[in-house]
């Protein structure tokens, strides 16, 4: 379970949220600039809140007055809005970047399964600039999951895709979540997407949860 209680002063408003995520998909829904990505980045440890607590099961990510747990020790998968694929590495290298060497043999079956579900095995030797937007999105999702994270963060994962590809990816996402039950925090400003993917929807506005 992920438990988040954080406050942070932002340029135009105060971010102040309090929520938990079980092994489910929780959607952070709201207009642009409402503080959704800030929440995600705080959970990932890319920025630090001013005060509060972030906890995943028994691991404390952040606690007021204590040194925050570095991002690399948080065992999470983060799918960035623009995918952030490494342009100088092949799809294969991108996906295996977070897979530890000694575990490679064990997890390769896992990786193969991942590639199969997402249908991207044929892309492995290609570079990110050689594949389409939908393929990039799948590769980024595979990369976020390949390290077997205990928590998945998705920032507007499907916003750059056309309607048909988007639908496909939504289905794949739900399928993957059925296979690996972990807490998922998803940011979107698309209402339909929020309703389709989320077990629960938290509507965020001006840094506060206005509707659960």
């Amino acid at each position, binding site marked *: 379970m992920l438990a988040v209680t954080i406050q942070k002063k932002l340029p135009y408003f105060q971010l102040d949220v309090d929520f938990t995520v079980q092994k489910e998909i929780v959607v952070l829904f709201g207009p642009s600039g409402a503080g959704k990505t800030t929440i995600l980045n705080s959970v*990932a*440890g*890319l920025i630090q809140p001013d005060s509060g607590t972030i906890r995943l099961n028994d691991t404390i990510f952040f606690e007021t007055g204590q040194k925050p747990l*570095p*991002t*690399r*020790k*948080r*065992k*999470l*998968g*983060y799918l*960035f809005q*623009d995918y*952030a694929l*490494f*342009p*100088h590495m092949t799809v294969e290298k991108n996906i295996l*970047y*977070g897979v*530890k060497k000694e575990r490679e043999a064990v997890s390769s079956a896992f990786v193969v399964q991942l590639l199969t579900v997402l249908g991207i095995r044929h892309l492995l030797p290609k570079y990110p*600039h*050689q*594949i*389409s937007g939908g393929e990039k999105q799948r590769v980024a999702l595979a*990369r*976020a999951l390949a*390290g077997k994270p205990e928590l998945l*963060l998705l920032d507007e994962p499907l916003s750059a895709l056309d309607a048909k590809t988007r639908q496909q990816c939504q289905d794949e996402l739900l399928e993957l979540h059925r296979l690996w039950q972990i807490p998922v925090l998803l940011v979107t400003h698309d209402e339909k997407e929020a309703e389709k993917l989320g077990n629960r929807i938290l509507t965020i506005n001006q840094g506060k949860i206005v509707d659960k």
Partner: protein
Amino acid sequence: MKVAGIATLIVFVAGVGTAFWLGRRSFPGKSVIESLFLLPLVLPPTVVGFGLLVLFGKNGWIGRLLAEWFDVQVVFTWIGAVIASVVVSFPLMYQAAAAAFQTLDEKLEQAARTMGASEWRVFWTISFPLAWPGILAGLVLSFARALGEFGATLMIAGYIPGKTDTLPIAIYFAAEAGQMEKATIWAVIIVALGFSAMMWLNWWGRKNMRRFSRRDE
């Protein structure tokens, strides 16, 4: 050549290191430090050479320390020539590396961190390879600058044939002594080296531009 090679190596490590380190931080006095780094670029080489002479000379404080602790004398040796080359070519390397790191997408480094990469791994697998074209440009320029260094080198290392005679200084004294043939040969060598460095840099730059902007869809 040896002098320029060693100097470039030192400048490479120091320039990339400081550029990366400083690029991520902001603190009061940062612009002062950066200006100080770039100073040798705008100062007359003789001023740089004079400064080095004062610092590294027998009575300069660095010179005295080196003499006392390591029994090393810098002035009028090839080490002096290396130091002069390092100081004048460092700004080029620093600027190129700083610019290269600045254009880097921070998201990529963050993505690497979310996948459990240490800062060390992030640097060697993400930041450095992506900044490499820019760093390489700085490296070639630094090497060319180190190779051509004249003023500061003459001030600190002097001209001792067989010991501190770097190419540009040898050319100067050959011409001075009326040995025009000798001077011509060396001058041609320097022009050829400089020209091929620039040609290669241009070619490499264009190749890299293609690599990152190509779309094979």
